[in-house]
């Protein structure tokens, strides 16, 4: 419609005149000729309507009374079809009803009465055309405004939608960012918690705390599959940690994927937890190290009532965290292995009864086993022997110098002998070249050494015995002659002859030789032949007078227990022993001292002790005094046989011979003979 109405303002206004009277039509034509209007006339309303369909007009002037259709009806139709065309009515008489109807029905712009005044008609039509043009312009404006309004409206609406969309996007991304930030924060705090974890139980606690954020996870179980706590099952109920050991771990737990628990899992579960479990997620923790990555180290079961859409979130979250958990669990297990290995080493070290110490050349003892370690000491010689400096025969310096194992026998002040094996340990870090360690292994060889010394002694004794057997008799003969000759010559000499003293010396020398031989012979003679039942006190008492001269400068104290049990012995041999002991005591105290003899009874032995308060026997000599031919006495004073002979005699009687000597305080010999 709008398109047909568009026409240029420059075009002449076009007026349609409709009247059934030709005279009127031609009159109108005449009036408007030469005027600025184009006049089209039509005699029938129907034709007029047809014409309106073909051409456009600015105004229509219609007669009221016409055949077929009234002017009101025509104008009404025109109003309806072409509202912008101004409508005028020609009427011969002014009837009120006609005007009212025409105004109401056809919105007639103006009525022109017939016969018209020409000027009035022109003015009327001009006004109608002006009105039509205004109407048209208004309509156009209204139409334009309408379009613009519509466009504006559309635009506004689009804008709002766009803004809404944008706002929504912004909000969404803000939420996303926040959630991401939160998740990162949570992950960081989880990792922080994990860094404090030192045990499997700790790890469980950390994971448990993390999973607890998820509403819907009810119980978390952790089953340890590797390490020393293999088979341990941990879970909490009402914040109390529970633990249980399960010896049998099924092989189907080798699956490494996070999954909803399988039927197998579930059955296993029900058997071991004795509890029906509906929804379970199995989360294996695998190791990170190549050695542990092939199978799970532990298995986490989360019991839950999460909905499907939440479950995915939960699994994502777990999977994200499992990598860190793996590292931590790996660390725990490795540390455990390390601790176990260390313990094993310590246990191995401690299992040795032999003392073992790791010593370095700067700090002293670094490690030592129980047999060696002494609280508060740092150096090996302090621990071994309470010394203030390195032991005399320590092989360590040699080992350190040569970097080869070395060994030696070290004797302690407690009369113990240790074979010390010193093994140098090469450093695995080259920059530590200056620090060198050795492992010292101490073997107590006191007993072996004692046996060895005894063996040496008995070998010596055997040799002496053999010597005695073969040579003693050969020597005895000439000695007897020598002595006898001296005696005879002494008697033959006149009194106060100057040779008398010399002969006496010869006889004394011969006597001493005989004494030596007698001692030697005792090694080969068995005392068993002349055993008698004797009283120990009596034998001692009968020996004392033989030393009258030697004892002159000594104070002798005797404490005899009269109830000592009798012993089986050869009196002369025991006398020899006691003579030797008392004689030694006297010789130890040339300036005089106190000699104490005590006797007492023990459950199986009759005992006697001979003590002096002389200078004592140096520690190094204490073992050697029993060796044949060992003597510290001046040449000619001692034979070095006294104590070894005594020992031999005592042992042949089944007795014991004990030396107790403290340098500077004196010496005590104890003899013990078995009861009869």
């Amino acid at each position, binding site marked *: 419609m709008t398109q047909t109405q568009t026409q240029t303002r420059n075009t002449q206004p076009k007026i349609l005149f409709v009247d059934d009277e030709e005279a009127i039509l031609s009159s109108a034509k005449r009036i408007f000729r030469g005027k600025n209007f184009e006049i089209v006339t039509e005699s029938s309303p129907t034709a007029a309507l047809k014409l309106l369909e073909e051409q456009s007009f600015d105004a229509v002037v219609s007669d009221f009374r016409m055949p077929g259709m009234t002017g009101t009806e025509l104008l009404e139709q025109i109003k309806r079809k072409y509202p912008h065309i101004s409508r005028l009515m020609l009427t011969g008489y002014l009837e009120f009803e006609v005007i009212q109807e025409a105004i109401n029905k056809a919105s007639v712009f103006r009525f022109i009465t017939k016969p018209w005044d020409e000027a009035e008609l022109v003015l009327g039509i001009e006004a109608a055309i002006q009105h039509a043009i205004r109407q048209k312009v208004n309509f156009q404006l209204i139409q334009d405004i309408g379009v613009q309004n519509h466009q504006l409206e559309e635009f506004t609406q689009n804008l709002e939608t766009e803004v809404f969309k944008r706002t929504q996007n912004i909000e969404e991304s803000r939420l996303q960012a926040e959630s991401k930030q939160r998740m990162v924060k949570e992950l960081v705090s989880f990792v922080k918690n994990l860094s404090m974890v030192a045990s499997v139980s700790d790890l469980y606690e950390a994971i448990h705390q993390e999973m607890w954020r998820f509403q819907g996870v009810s119980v978390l179980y952790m089953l340890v599959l590797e390490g020393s706590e293999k088979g341990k099952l941990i879970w909490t109920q009402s914040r109390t940690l529970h633990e249980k050991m399960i010896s049998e771990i099924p092989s189907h737990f080798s699956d490494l994927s996070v999954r909803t628990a399988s039927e197998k899992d579930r059955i296993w579960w029900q058997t071991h937890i004795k509890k029906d479990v509906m929804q379970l997620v199995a989360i294996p923790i695998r190791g990170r190290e190549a050695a542990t990555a092939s199978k799970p180290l532990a298995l986490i079961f989360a019991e839950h009532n999460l909905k499907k859409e939440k479950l995915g979130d939960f699994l994502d979250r777990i999977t994200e965290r499992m990598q860190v958990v793996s590292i931590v669990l790996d660390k725990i297990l490795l540390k455990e292995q390390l601790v176990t290995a260390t313990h094993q080493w310590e246990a191995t070290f401690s299992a040795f009864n032999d003392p073992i110490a790791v010593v370095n050349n700067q700090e002293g003892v670094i490690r030592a086993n129980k047999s060696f370690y002494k609280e508060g000491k740092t150096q090996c010689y302090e621990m071994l022997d309470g010394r203030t400096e390195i032991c005399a025969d320590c092989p360590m310096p040699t080992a350190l110098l040569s970097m080869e194992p070395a060994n030696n026998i070290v004797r302690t002040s407690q009369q113990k002998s240790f074979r010390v094996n010193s093994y140098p340990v090469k450093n695995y870090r080259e920059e530590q070249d200056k620090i060198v360690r050795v492992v010292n292994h101490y073997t107590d060889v006191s007993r072996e050494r004692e046996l060895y010394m005894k063996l040496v002694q008995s070998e010596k004794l055997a040799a002496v015995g053999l010597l005695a057997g073969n040579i003693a008799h050969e020597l005895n003969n000439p000695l*007897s002659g020598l002595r006898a000759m001296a005696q005879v010559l002494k008697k033959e000499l006149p009194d106060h002859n100057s040779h008398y003293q010399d002969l006496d010396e010869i006889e004394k020398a011969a006597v001493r030789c005989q004494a030596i031989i007698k001692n030697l012979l005792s090694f080969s003679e068995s005392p068993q032949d002349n055993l008698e039942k004797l009283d120990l006190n009596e034998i001692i008492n009968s020996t004392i007078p033989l030393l009258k001269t030697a004892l002159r400068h000594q104070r002798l104290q005797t404490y005899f227990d009269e109830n000592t049990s009798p012993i089986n012995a050869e009196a002369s041999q025991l006398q020899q022993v006691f003579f030797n002991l008392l004689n030694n005591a006297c010789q130890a105290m040339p300036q005089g001292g106190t000699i104490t003899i005590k006797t007492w009874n023990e459950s199986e032995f009759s005992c006697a002790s001979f003590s002096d308060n002389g200078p004592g026997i140096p520690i190094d000599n204490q073992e050697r005094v029993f060796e044949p031919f060992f003597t510290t006495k001046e040449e000619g004073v001692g034979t070095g046989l006294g104590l070894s002979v005594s020992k031999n005699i005592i042992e042949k009687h089944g007795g014991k011979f004990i030396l107790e000597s403290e340098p500077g305080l004196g010496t005590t010999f104890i003899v013990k003979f078995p009861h009869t």
Partner: protein
Amino acid sequence: MKILIVDDEVIVAKALSRAFVASGHEVSMAHTGDTGLAEWYRYAPDVVFLDVVMPELTGPQVIQEYRTKNPKNSKKQIIILMTAHSSVKHRESALEVGADDFIRKPFDNVFDIVKKAEMLFKELK
């Protein structure tokens, strides 16, 4: 008394000899079993001292030899073994081999032996 001393250790024999001579007795000496046996026949001593261990014949062998060759010898004499050997420790073991007594060597005082011999000889008479 006539004393025969048989000992391969010359000094022993000589010392004994001088002790007996000093006590007023007559002494003959031999230093082997053989010569001792011969001297025994020839000298016919009252007291015979025999060392046990000697080269050739031992003391007990000398006694045995003498008894075998002179079974009818009626003359009484004292035979004393001198021993450092552990095999003759008692008077009984000396008697077994035909001696009257024994002296253990080494002896402490040679004059005790003289006294002992005198005493035994007195008893024999």
